[in-house]
């Protein structure tokens, strides 16, 4: 059996009295795309920083690429790529200079860096902006440049902290597309996100974090089927009395529902049957949507809160 690229047991990160990561167990195998999904403050960045060997764990065991981050930090980092949540590019340098300088941090020979820089600029579709200052780039272009920069040392493991947060849908799809391409060519990806569609798109396996803990783990399909069932019926009512009546009705069918103000989110394997049942009982919600269950619903079920509040 090959050694996992990331192996954490009881991993803890404290900042003074605040517990940012409260003992998590994680294993990331070579070649997979692994995600940390969670709301603001869940501890995603704190976890990523520990894996990137720039933040010593407060407790627990952590191995990255089979080595100890405390002892072998520089050797591990030589084989990682990191894309930060916030921009860390050199704004006053050009796009290409950002890559050339970064390659030197890994002590790569200049001709090698130049060749890779050209390839990477093509890969992230920034070739025509190579000689522009980063200042002049859009948010999506900067994020793509950050990804290109993180690849300059041909890392075995690429860490991406919220790779598409703040980007418009088109820019997000461009980034996703590039990450799919990397996945296909065998780069191991570890990413954080608070978008469930991103997690569903990109991750083979993910953990849902909340308050520094892992509340669920599995593949997106797995998690959805295990925790919510195939379909979701989202019902809106004009008042809570109607809502409660509907809750009682569907409860007799053994269907579980999340109760929100003037709203019910019901989890079932057959949405149409549930809707028909309500009609027979003379209950008519103000609005009604039947959709496929997603990770959002998993999060709601597990924590009673919506992921994006």
């Amino acid at each position, binding site marked *: 059996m090959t050694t996992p690229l990331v192996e954490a047991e009881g991993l803890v990160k404290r*900042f003074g009295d605040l517990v940012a990561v409260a003992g998590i167990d994680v294993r990331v195998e070579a070649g997979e795309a692994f995600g940390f999904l969670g709301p603001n403050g869940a501890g995603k960045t704190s976890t990523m*920083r520990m894996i*990137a060997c*720039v*933040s*010593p764990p407060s407790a627990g065991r952590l191995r990255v690429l089979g080595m100890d981050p405390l002892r072998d*930090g*520089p*050797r591990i*980092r*030589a084989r*990682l790529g*990191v894309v*930060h949540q*916030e*921009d*860390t*590019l*050199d*704004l*006053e*340098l050009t796009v290409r*200079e950002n890559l*050339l*300088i*970064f390659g*030197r*941090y*890994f*002590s790569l020979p200049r001709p090698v860096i130049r060749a890779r820089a050209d390839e990477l600029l093509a890969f992230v579709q920034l070739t025509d902006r190579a000689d522009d200052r980063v200042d002049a780039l859009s948010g999506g272009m900067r994020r793509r440049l950050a990804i290109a*920069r993180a690849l300059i*040392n041909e890392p075995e493991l690429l860490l991406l902290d919220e790779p598409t947060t703040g980007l418009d849908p088109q820019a997000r799809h461009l980034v996703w597309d590039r990450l799919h391409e990397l996945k296909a060519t065998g780069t191991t990806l570890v990413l954080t996100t608070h978008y469930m569609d991103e997690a569903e798109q990109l991750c083979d396996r993910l953990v849902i974090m909340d308050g520094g803990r892992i509340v669920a783990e599995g593949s997106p399909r797995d998690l959805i089927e295990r925790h919510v069932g195939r379909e979701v019926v989202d019902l809106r009512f004009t008042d809570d009395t109607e809502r409660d009546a509907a809750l009682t009705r569907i409860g007799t069918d053994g269907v579980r529902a999340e109760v929100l103000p003037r709203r019910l989110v019901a989890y079932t394997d057959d949405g149409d049957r549930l809707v028909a049942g309500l009609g027979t009982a003379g209950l008519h919600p103000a609005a009604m949507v039947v959709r496929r269950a997603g990770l959002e619903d998993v999060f709601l079920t597990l924590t009673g809160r919506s992921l994006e509040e």
Partner: protein
Amino acid sequence: MSRWFGPATVRVIEHQAAVQRRFWRGSVFGYVLNPVLFLAAMGFGVGGLVAEGSGKVDGVTYLAFVTPGLMAAAAMQTAAGESLWPVMAGMKWLRTYHAMITTPLGPADVFAGIVTWTGLRATAGGLVFVAVGAALGGVRSPWAPLAAGVAGLTAAAFAAPLAAFAATQETDARFPVIMRVGIVPLFLFSGTFFPVAQLPAVLRPARFASPLWYGVELARAATLGRWDPTLPVKAAVLVAVILAAGVWGRRTFTRRLVQ
């Protein structure tokens, strides 16, 4: 902890040089123009007044006296400019240091790199100063190029503690205070423009607390070609300041970047 100086330090210097290159026209202009302006104003302007009075300062023309003083003071200014706001930018505004430490580089390498870079820049500035001073007649000794090395040492003796301090700050609110209360008085009273002997007797010992004074003394010894046995001690003081601030800076950079 990583080494104090090594290939990793050089990588950080390469980054600093790349950023600087974007501005090189501006800075080369400043490198040459500043010495010319300062030496002309001080050497010929003030020097003219001195010539009408006693004629000499410390046994030489005023131009010859003030050239090494200005050179060391300029090194201090370079260091202050490179080590406060740019460090805040690397830590917080642009966060470029955070990117550096995700590579094999560590916080101590970043610190050593920026201090060394500042020293190198000030050495280059010192060479220009020596050349301009020689052209204007303020530099006569063949030992004068050594003064450029002194400028580098002086700059590092300011860059190290200032960068170490900057890494402890959340905002740049205190930086102007440091400039006004620290850098400007040192600039004026470290034997730069007039001999310390001109100060009231009670103030004179204060020079020993000014790193700039040691730099000025060493630079002046070089440009005037005057050897005296206290020079190695003065050089050792600057080195000691760099080493002490080095211990501090390696710690503050690490604490700030590796949390």
